């Protein structure tokens, strides 16, 4: 709804501009400034598009941004195909942001988090049911295809001058990455190389695919063939790697709890688990 209002305002502003005197033009400028500002704050609220009018049912799923590809391209469409007239609305973002949105707005049916911490937060307020772990993930180093800083192992991230991008602290993948660097004994050196603390996993990957950063630590699912990112992967050895466990649950007060429960069952079913494996995740149990 909002982008439409914003567009109408801008079109109106453009017409005023054409025939305007100086004072009128300042009104136009003000409108442009504020609609511009509104756009930027809109970026953060994710992709919560509204469903079309003829849809009979819809389900709102808040999911960690590392789940974007598998939920949007596989599990979502497959589940929709089993339910006539169902539209799933996904809101992808950092799990910490999603937890905050659920607590303040409470519009989610399902929450799929990249860490237990933020599911705990939602479990405390507003509460969840049917919580279970549905996937696991590990960490991997990614570099641009030509690996400009010659990263061959996690220890190379301590080399001064390497431009390293991590997710911010509090974002699950950011905390996991710091845990792995700590395990490797290079947390301090690596943190000195950090050039940007990104707000979610997808933004971290984007900085490397754009060839801006020399290296980043993300999930192994990000480099699975199905995710199809244009990066080189450098493995992190088992003994320093971190296992991320993804919980999923129906949010208390869900607009459609029955359907939400069915979605959970589907994610945990053989078909759902097969999709997750295809996208580079480990299975639950």
């Amino acid at each position, binding site marked *: 709804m909002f982008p439409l209002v914003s567009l109408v305002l*801008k079109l109106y502003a453009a017409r005023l501009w054409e025939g305007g*005197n*100086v*004072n009128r*033009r*300042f009104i136009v*400028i003000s409108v*442009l*400034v504020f*609609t*511009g*500002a509104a*756009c*930027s*704050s*809109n*970026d*953060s609220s994710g992709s919560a598009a509204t469903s079309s009018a003829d849809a009979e049912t819809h389900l709102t799923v808040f999911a960690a941004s590392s789940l974007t590809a598998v939920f949007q391209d596989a599990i979502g469409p497959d589940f929709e195909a089993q339910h006539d007239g169902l539209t799933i609305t996904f809101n992808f973002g*950092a799990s*910490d*942001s999603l*937890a*905050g949105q659920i607590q303040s707005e409470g519009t989610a049916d399902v929450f799929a988090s990249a860490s237990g911490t933020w599911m705990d937060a939602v479990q405390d307020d507003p509460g969840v049911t049917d919580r279970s772990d549905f996937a696991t993930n590990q960490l991997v180093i990614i570099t*641009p295809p030509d690996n400009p800083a010659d990263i061959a192992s996690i220890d190379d991230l301590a080399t001064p001058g390497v*431009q390293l*991008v991590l997710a*911010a*602290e*509090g974002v699950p993948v950011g905390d996991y990455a710091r845990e792995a660097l700590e395990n490797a004994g290079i947390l301090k050196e690596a943190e000195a190389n*950090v*050039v*940007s*603390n*990104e*707000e979610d996993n997808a*933004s971290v990957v984007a*900085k490397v695919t*754009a*060839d*801006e*950063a020399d290296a980043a630590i993300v999930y192994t699912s990000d480099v699975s063939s199905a995710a199809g990112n244009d990066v080189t992967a450098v493995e992190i050895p088992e003994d320093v790697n971190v296992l991320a466990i993804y919980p999923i649950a129906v949010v208390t007060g869900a607009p459609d709890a029955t359907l939400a429960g069915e979605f959970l069952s589907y994610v945990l079913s053989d078909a759902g688990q097969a999709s997750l494996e295809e996208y580079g995740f480990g299975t639950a149990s």
Partner: protein
Amino acid sequence: MHRRLPLPLVGLAAIGAIFVALPVVALVVRAPWGELGEALGGVGAGSAFRLSVVVSVAATVLSVVFGVPLAWVLARGSFPGRSVLRAVVVLPLVLPPVVGGLGLLFALGRSGVAGRWLHEALGIQLTFTTWGAIVAATFVSMPLVVIATEAGLRSIDPRYELAAATLGARPSRAMWRVVMPMLAPQVAAGAVLAWARALGEFGATITFAGNLAGRTQTLPLAVYQARQTDPGGAIFLSLILVVISIVVLVSMRHRLTGGR
């Protein structure tokens, strides 16, 4: 003499005013005032504040240095494609900032169209640096200087310049001594709006320059990062932005509205 305003007008105006003021009031009400000191320390308010001042002021200077000549060319020049150029120059105003940031990344990033050359030939990298944040802020704010200046120039009769020329002034002298003094208030108004836009810039900055405390993390980015882990700190950072903006807008109100 006291003029009576139509009641529906006053009613709608009141709703409009409350709508605009309410979010600011809400920030003040929700702020955990007892924890002011530790909250500000925890979110690195000092470095974000300094960086915001540096970035917004530098972006305003760059916007004026390049935006005023651009407006001059648009207002006084006559060449094919002028209206296309004007549309292109104003585009950053209507573009979502994140799109601008992405465009900057592909243009001036270290493997971008022009950025590759900057990086290989001169060893300059803009991304993840304070200069990158300044570039992003300039990109979104320069159109405001261009628009205000061009509007000002169009309201100044070109015959002043002609008169100066007939009295023997070369074009550059006529520009500085005759037109500039009349134009200055418009340029100043444009610069204030540009500065305000640069201060609030978020999307292009985080996309192009990244987010690192002390280097590219301006106040809006610090608010965004703190909002989940430290909501109290995020509120105080927001209030810093509100206070700076109000102080500057109030002190510049004559320039902005031309009113009393």
